[in-house]
């Protein structure tokens, strides 16, 4: 039962990591590519890390929680680096897809 859970977590994690990279490869402009790695890859690695925590907890008998630290760290840093990369891209005016919609609510 536990083995099935672990196997499922590992495969789901790897799958989301792969989806993040597929997004990075195939989406048409930079701002859209940003979505793949920041969301999918983060959740993918998170799932693999949870699998690792469960695995080592049952293997050694001691509670192994330090994987949670990396997961938390990734969940805090991924949006920050995404924000900075988007800001840098806006700053040097990276091309946007033609059909990108611009909505400014309550501003000029």
């Amino acid at each position, binding site marked *: 039962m536990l083995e099935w859970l672990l196997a499922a977590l590992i495969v789901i994690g790897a799958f989301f990591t792969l989806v993040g*990279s597929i997004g990075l490869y195939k989406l048409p402009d*930079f701002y859209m590519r940003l979505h793949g790695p920041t969301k999918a*890859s983060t959740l993918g*690695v998170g799932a693999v*890390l949870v699998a690792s925590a469960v695995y080592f907890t049952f293997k050694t008998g001691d509670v192994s929680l330090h*994987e949670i630290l990396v997961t938390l760290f990734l969940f805090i840093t991924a949006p920050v680096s995404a924000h*900075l990369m988007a800001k840098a*891209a806006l700053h040097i005016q990276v091309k946007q897809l033609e059909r990108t919609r611009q909505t400014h609510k309550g501003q000029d």
Partner: protein
Amino acid sequence: MIHTAIMIAYVMVGLAFVLSLARLVKGPELPDRILALDTLYINTIALLILLGIHLGSAMYFEAALLIAVMGFMGTLALSKYLLRGDIME
């Protein structure tokens, strides 16, 4: 069971590496390359953790933690470089 799952996961993460590398080579703009590097380090963390489970050793975890910290710093420094033209003032 876990062994098979890890083998499948290796293949998937390996493919993810190839796709990110392709984006790193292709560009076309600098932020794309920074994003590709960012994705590469996140994929490396996944690969290291998988290796740790596969070989049953908790040592790989420390490497993953270090890569997480250093990769984040690298992304920050590169983005700051694009924003301001230099890293330190």
